[in-house]
């Protein structure tokens, strides 16, 4: 009998305390979820969904048109094209450099592609945004085009 009462009393207190914990946790949880930002992973997973829309109807020299179409020209200059940006380095002769990313990566097509997709991983604090939401094949085409700029 007394054990039962004890159990009930315990339950009662647990119930009351738990209630207010919930209230507090709810408030905290709300604060934490205040800014809803899609994680990068899900962003890149969604990529194929639109590739038909974003797919290039490009001339054979598709690298340049992809470069311009995705706005790289807002920050980079390639002489003789519509890319006149000045925030990032001039890429007119990228292919002839010995290294890229201010010297941290070898100048290969593979490394250029990796840099375009996630510059923040290769160089923390970088001012260039990641372009890993672009289809891999488009990044490859841009990298091939840039590597060929002598």
């Amino acid at each position, binding site marked *: 009998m007394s054990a039962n009462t004890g159990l*009930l009393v315990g339950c*009662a207190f647990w119930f009351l305390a738990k209630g207010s914990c919930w209230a507090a946790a709810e408030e905290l949880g709300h604060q934490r979820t*205040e800014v809803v930002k*899609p994680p990068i992973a899900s962003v*890149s997973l969604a990529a194929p969904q639109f590739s038909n829309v*974003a797919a290039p109807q490009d001339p054979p020299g598709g690298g340049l048109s992809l470069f311009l179409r995705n*706005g*790289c020209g807002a920050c980079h200059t390639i002489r003789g094209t519509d890319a006149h*940006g000045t925030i990032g380095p001039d890429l007119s002769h990228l292919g002839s450099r010995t290294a890229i990313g201010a010297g941290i990566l070898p100048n290969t097509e593979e490394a250029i592609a990796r840099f375009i997709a996630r510059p923040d991983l290769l160089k923390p604090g970088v001012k260039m945004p990641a372009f890993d939401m672009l289809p891999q094949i488009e990044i490859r085409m841009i990298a091939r085009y840039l590597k060929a700029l002598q």
Partner: protein
Amino acid sequence: MRGSRADPGAKPSSAAAEEDDVVRVANQPIMIRLKHVVFGAVGLPVVILLGAWIGFFNVGASSGHWKVTAWFLQLAMRSAVRTYALAVDAPKTLDSRGLPAAAGHFARGCAICHGEPGELRSPAVMRMLPQPPDLALTVGDWTDAQLFRIVKHGIRFTGMPAWPARDRDDEVWAMVAFLRELPKLDANGFRELALDGSQPTAPAALADCTRCHGGNGEGRGGLVPALAGQKEAYLLASLQAYARGDRTSGFMALPVTGVDPSDLAALARHFAALPPSPVDPDRASAEVIGRGRQIAEAGIPERNVPACSGCHIGSDKNPLYPRLDGQHAAYLERQLKLFRSETRGGTRFWRIMATAAQRLTDDDITAVSAFFSKRSEAPQ
């Protein structure tokens, strides 16, 4: 208390015995009170829990609260709102540009419970406990900050919901501005503000959109975007972003929930095909617009602001990069500030735009928004 008069040492013995009795009698109630306290602390929760478990408490709403419960709940609600509203920073004047969107949201999201001018409410709602008040009659009781608190957070245990998007205080303020207008509106005034005389022939989903975006997709009021002539892929991806919660807006959360994905595609196609609507009458000075053009075409290199034209001007750009030409300046400003504070998500490209907006000052934003809202698609 009588027991306190007992002072055995100072009295004759017979009197002392009498006093002794008095003390004993006086002490007894105290003993019983202690027992009460113990019983209260341990027993009462048990009894209440037992009562609840047996099903003793009537949770039916038909008979209303006891007077004392109703009084207590009102007191607790009003005091909590008053106290929490102290932390709210209210603007001196409420911005009226968001009224059409707020009215449109009210018609679908609030009127079902609170009623709208000239409409009788469903009897089912009138039997809710507590009954949702007719806001035209009660908003006068609250300050702006208190209304903000109520609309943003809702009221627990009453059915009054919180704002559907948690990081959009700007939208909550628009709703507060509308609540201030509400008492002045009759049925016609409300319908005009909230429904834009929606065409009855339009399919239901589209009629819902035109309440705020207008029959021609022109966007009603400065803060609802024009959709006419926007890129189809961008419109669709934005609708999907709202539906997934990747882009938060209380105004857009309701219209996209429950809409079939194929209907979203049809809506995007519909608005993209409409001819762009005429631009806002220009209020910005030529000097401001000139500065805006400078930012749009060359960026601000010394502050690492890229040229907007690299992504937003020209028909050969990525179909997920929106057109800005002819968009309402107030809307562009609002979006740029949201990007700058990283509270605007969007399509899978939103981070690029957040980077571009990071170092814009308020003046830059005003200028560049004025420039784009005046620009039309034809190359200049």
